[in-house]
């Protein structure tokens, strides 16, 4: 098993390194001079050159890449051109909005989808199953940012139950913060719940057809006990895979939703950085998100070993 884990870890590190090269090179070929863009067309050549020097833009690309990547490893992501503060500080400031939003929407998605998927599988072919499948089919087709607009219209403008947007900051209290994140999290989480409920249903149905389930029933175990004790855990691999993929998607998806609700998260930071051509911010935030996705994929792989003991034995051999 250790060999499999080491191999997976090494591949994740290689993937991270290649991804960092891709991100660096992609933003390296940007047309125009960032220093010129920042200072405007009326800037003197001397001023532009001075800024280029202070930003390190006149160093060779390889040197800049190595300094960027070695800085990232120790938490130094460079300094924002426009905010004049370390990117790490900006990241910490904004991730306290984006991460809770992604986690809350993942929680909403799983809390709805898993019970609904189990219920539909347990009553396969019933009217409830058909209804759940039809609703989930519709849910998959709904773009989260449109659902967000509708939620704003109904819950904030019409019923005036929650604020339409903005974020008061965690210092205004956890409840106030969560209240501001609730609508965005529902908008992000519901379409994902539609996908996850279908995956849960089909994974569980496949497990329920296995011989050991029949044996458990033949032993006299109740339907409910068979479902919860034997079938559910064994059908968790595809469910965990999708949850892992969804978390990565939700983290990136916050970029759009933050724009609907005017939330000061990573997404809005990236868009502001693009318009201001603050490339170090764009490249660092994209790299952090990509690294998070690679790490989540690795954790999902490792979770398989925890869920399925057969994989542990196979890996140990």
């Amino acid at each position, binding site marked *: 098993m250790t060999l499999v884990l080491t191999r997976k870890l090494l*591949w994740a590190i*290689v*993937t991270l390194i*290649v*991804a960092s090269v*891709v*991100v660096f090179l*992609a*933003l390296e*070929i*940007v*047309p125009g001079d960032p220093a010129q863009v920042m200072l405007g067309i009326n800037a003197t050549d001397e001023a532009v050159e001075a800024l280029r020097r202070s930003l390190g833009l006149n160093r060779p690309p390889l040197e800049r890449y190595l300094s960027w990547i070695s800085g990232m490893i120790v938490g130094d992501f460079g300094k924002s051109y426009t905010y004049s503060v370390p990117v790490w500080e900006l990241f910490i400031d904004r991730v306290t909005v984006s991460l809770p939003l992604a986690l809350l929407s993942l929680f909403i998605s799983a809390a709805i989808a898993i019970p609904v998927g189990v219920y539909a599988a347990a009553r396969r072919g019933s009217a409830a199953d058909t209804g759940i499948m039809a609703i989930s*089919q*519709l849910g*998959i*087709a*709904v*773009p989260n*940012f*449109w659902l967000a*607009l*509708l939620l*704003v*219209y109904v819950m904030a*403008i019409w019923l005036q139950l929650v604020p339409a947007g903005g974020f008061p900051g965690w210092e205004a209290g956890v409840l106030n913060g969560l209240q501001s994140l609730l609508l965005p999290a529902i908008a992000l989480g519901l379409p994902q719940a539609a996908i996850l409920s279908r995956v849960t249903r*089909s994974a569980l*149905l*496949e497990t329920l057809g296995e011989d050991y389930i029949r044996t458990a029933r033949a032993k006299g175990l109740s339907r409910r006990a068979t479902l919860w004790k034997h079938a559910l855990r064994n059908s968790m691999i595809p469910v965990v895979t999708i949850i892992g993929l969804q978390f*990565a*998607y939700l983290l*990136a*998806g916050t*970029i*759009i939703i933050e*724009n*609907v609700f005017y939330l000061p998260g990573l997404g809005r930071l*990236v*868009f502001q*950085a*693009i318009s201001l*051509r603050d*490339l170090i911010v*764009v490249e660092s935030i*994209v790299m952090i*998100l*990509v690294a998070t*996705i*690679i790490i989540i*994929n690795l954790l999902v792989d490792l979770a398989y070993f925890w869920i399925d003991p057969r994989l542990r034995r196979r890996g140990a051999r």
Partner: protein
Amino acid sequence: MTPDLAPPAQHFWSRALANRSFFVGFIITAVVVMMAAVSYVWTPFDVTELNIAGKLKAPSTLHWFGTDHFGRDIFSMIMVGARNSIAVALVAVIIGIGIGVPVGCWAAARGGFLDEALMRGNDIIFAFPALLSAVMITAVFGPGAINAIIAIGIFNIPVFARLARGAALALWTREFILAARVAGKGRALITAEHIVPNMANLIIVQGTVAFALGIIQEAGLAYVGLGTQPPFPSWGKMLNEAQTMMSFAPHMAIVPGLAIVITVLGLNLLGDGLRDVLDPHLSRERT
């Protein structure tokens, strides 16, 4: 048993049209495609014509879906916007199939280190959701429909590569492939003559799913300003413009959103139906 002597195409259509998912999905998709095609020659109103006096009108017999904040006819904009959604999503699917399927087939045919390397390359691309690719591409080249196509297309490549590799690996163990190898055919020829035609159904089904996802992704990119740029109408851009008008002109947000939902639903139903019709074995496993 009487052998089925109907030509394959006729046989397909008779089975397909009897499938409820396929039928509904096909009708919806056909209507959207026709709407987009007709918009090249006719729209009820000119989508570039501004009419400030007639702005923000609710749906009526004159303007079926109402007008926007510039007085433009929303129905006409939906028609023209359909072109954009279809074109971006379709080209992105073609990129995904065009690069992903050969890569997947190549990996399966060669095996060993090349297979491992190609699949790990896939993992790297997979770490870049379309939105992040679009952010990077936009940071470099600026926003636009072409960049949206590239971002969604890149996202599609590993999806099709994994699918093609899995299907090809299974096919390489079959007797008829062994027979072709015994006959002296090379890997490339076997892939072109036997492997690809035998996985075509799977690719078509995944193609409709990726097409549907591409419509949502395109709308998302246009919504945040990374996709199609004004004055060309796009469903995502229409939603963006509707955001600040929600309290007094909700139809501006409801109509483009419904257009996206109905189109995606139609494509998903079409994909489900195609899977049932083209691969009954897979369909049985799924349910």
